[in-house]
């Protein structure tokens, strides 16, 4: 209850970053942006399209993990997850 405001702010930040990451994913993986992958070249002998798609994918995983970590640590001691004030 004491750091309610802090908690709320932290939550809002996580939500914003999560949405931002989602947007980055959608933009990079959907046309027209995804056509970057059609550049006819190879990276270390691998087709660029393959490297591009898997790199974006990996990037999303790493980003997601970084976003989830503070949340998980933050919520653990707090007992039941936010019942109070999540933004909507």
């Amino acid at each position: 209850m004491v750091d309610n405001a802090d908690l709320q702010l932290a939550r809002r930040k996580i939500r914003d970053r999560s949405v931002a990451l989602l947007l980055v994913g959608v933009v990079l993986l959907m046309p027209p942006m995804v056509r970057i992958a059609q550049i006819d070249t190879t990276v270390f002998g691998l087709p660029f399209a393959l490297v591009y798609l898997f790199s974006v994918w990996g990037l999303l995983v790493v980003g997601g993990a970084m976003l989830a970590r503070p949340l998980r640590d933050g919520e653990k001691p707090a007992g039941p997850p936010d019942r109070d004030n999540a933004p909507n």
Partner: protein
Amino acid sequence: MLSVNILLFVCLGYVALLFVVAFIVDRRTRRKPIRWLHSSVIYTLSISIYCTSWTFYGAVGSAARNGLEFITIYLGPTLVFIGWWWLLRKLVRIGRAHRITSIADLISSRYGKSPSLAVLVTVIAVIAITPYIALQLQSVTNSYQVIVGGDDGTETAFWIAAGMALFTILFGTRNLDANERHHGVVAAIALEAIVKLLALIAVGVFATFIVADGLHDVFEGVSAETIQGAGDIFGPRWVTLTFLSATAIICLPRQFQVTVVENIEERHVATASWLFPLYMLGMTIFIVPIALVGQSVMPAGSNPDLYVLTLPLAENRNELAMLAFLGGFSSATSMVIVAAIAASTMVSNHIVMPVALRLLPSRAVSGDVRNLLLTSRRFSIAAILGLGFLYFYLSGGSDALAAIGLIAFVGVAQFLPSLIGGIFWRSATRTGAIAGLVIGFALWAYTLFLPSFDGHFILSANVIDHGPFGISLLRPEALFGLDHFDPLVHAVVWSVGMNALCFVVFSSLSTPDGLERLQAALFVDVYKSTTGSASNISAEVADSEDLFVLAQRILGGNPAKKLFDEMAASQGMESGLPHPTDAVVARLERELAGSIGAASAHAMVTRIAGGQTVSITELIDIADETQQVLETSRQLEEKSAELERTAQQLRVVNDRLRTLDAQKDEFLSQVSHELRTPMTSIRSFSEILMKDEQIEDKDRSRFVSIIHDESLRLTRLLDEILDINRLEAGVSKLDLIQIDANDAVHKALDTIAGMTRSAGVKIRTDLENGPLWIQANDDRLRQVLINVLSNAVKYNLAPLPEILVRTSRIDTFIQIDIIDNGGGVPPELSTSIFDKFARGNRTGRNHGAGLGLPISLAIMRAMKGNLTIEVTPEKTTFFRLSFESATT
């Protein structure tokens, strides 16, 4: 070639292992939950049933045919999980708050607990997942045949279906959990998730580094077309497939089951948000290499869907082939088991139970309906697998795996508008949901599902090619002339598009009833309220007894009794049934919803309660007041916790007071005794003096002096009693000044010099150098010293009595020890000696009332020091005055 026997043996062994895992976990969980089994990792692994045999075998086939397109099937879910905060979190929260048992339950709950909607969603779900189950049967059958040979897959498929049904029945319907959670099954599918991941990676490593010579070799001379497939890979189909897979990860009944229903803790979703995409990345990383190596190594015309298996076989790596087979087997079984559980839950909760309850006499106690419920689930599971087998049989099992899976995806995508609209849009109505679902389902069936039979089922080949009655505008795969689309994109655009459109249009045209509006508020604003309480039964008409009968029938005798006892107790009743208040009815409805779904629970409770509903205005009031009520009740909780704390403190204080009171009684009794003793002498002698005239003068003057002495003793006693009371009550504050302890000792010894001389006691001193500064009251310290010293004189019975007074400084403490050679205080008295009126060694026949030491102790404490009894190395006891050293 692997022999049939070995294959069967390994398979049965593997299934037995799954059995054991599920069994042990189920048993253990019931007694004491196993912590790591409730971890976010297990949760994530259970979500990986998304990767079915379609991924295990079909993705390679898809990569071989269409290049990288297969990856869209995993990009959609990745995006959904990465954006979990926005959608998944809300779904999980709603699922937990409203005890949702399935996706049908969620949708029907949201739209006013509508039974018709529940039935509609259930029917669509069953029809949509049937091809999907058939696909699993087909892939296991194919892989089996690849290993052991043989042509007739039908029989194999039948036994596989039967075996899966058996396993699912055994573990999915063993008990009726209020939350529809299956810990044993989840553990088993988590194990399968690991097996299939390891198997696919093993085959990938084998293909890349053993069959081929590393990644360079694999991609040597591979054209961009091979990688990107023919045509425009990043066109509408790419977007559609990503959208479909993103939809499927939410709307597939089995995914809803593992993600929402089986969720144990909300924060597990946070971990799954990146761990599940990572798992899929691991599953797919070797798909392209396997496809490419397979194409270059395997003979032309071999089925690319089975490269994962045929590649190791062609290289005579039987163990690896075995592992690959188990991987595919795992993918298929875990999917089928969960899908069957999810579907059977829906069928029994939303179709069988309502019908059964209608047929059963509503007031008759027919034991309980648990058995009915379990039986209906078992039959549902068998029926669903039967349907899957039938589809396999009818469709001839020849289609490419990916195509079948996509049919199911588009089918369940019909839930998306109602689902998303339901939890984000308050104005969405039941009418809109039904309209959208019906139109979407019809279009899906017409444009995608029925054509998939290639004219063998309902739609003839002629209709598919030229439209019904030859109307080409109505051709299923080019509706109204939209023929420049891929059939899949075409079906999605029509079915999901029209579905969403109808949903929105009909929602805005219709007016929701009261319960719908209430549920809408509870779902859309789920973060604002944690427990959904949406009962609108008017309490007066609900009859406790009937509700109890209902609960017995659904929950079973004992749990129902426990629930009602609990509710009665919460109303402060010792026995009997609780009053049917709103809270009781709502709670009952929630509990029942856990077993049979919200719509059925609501329908039954309403029926028993007389079907009266409160007015819409009242309901809206309730919805708006929910917030206030929650807030108020939270404040009340805090208040009552505070009151409880205060009461606890009062109890403690009261206990202390009681003890103090008993001590005071004891003290008064002692005081009375001590006062009566001198008074006895005074009275007795004064009577003698009054009545007896013949007393000799010598006796007379002796008696008078006794009376005088005893009067003094009385006075002293009273003074002491007052003194100790004031000291202990802290009334008399002592003025503390800085004095030298050695100095105080000298003054005290001077004062009692006369007494020691007359008693013949020798005094020795052993004083620490320098002034020993302490904070004390000079007079009071002298009083304590004199008291202790005179005790040492009085009680010392040694032939050559001697007293040693010693001062010392230890760390920050100053100590004054008074040690006599009279044997000291017996150790057993060393604590009670400070009690009031206790007398040390009474054989010493001394008359001082026992208040000297208690007063000394009280004085010392008032000066922040202490008076204790210590023991010398020679085991004699002595008194020690200790002080905190005062800084100079």
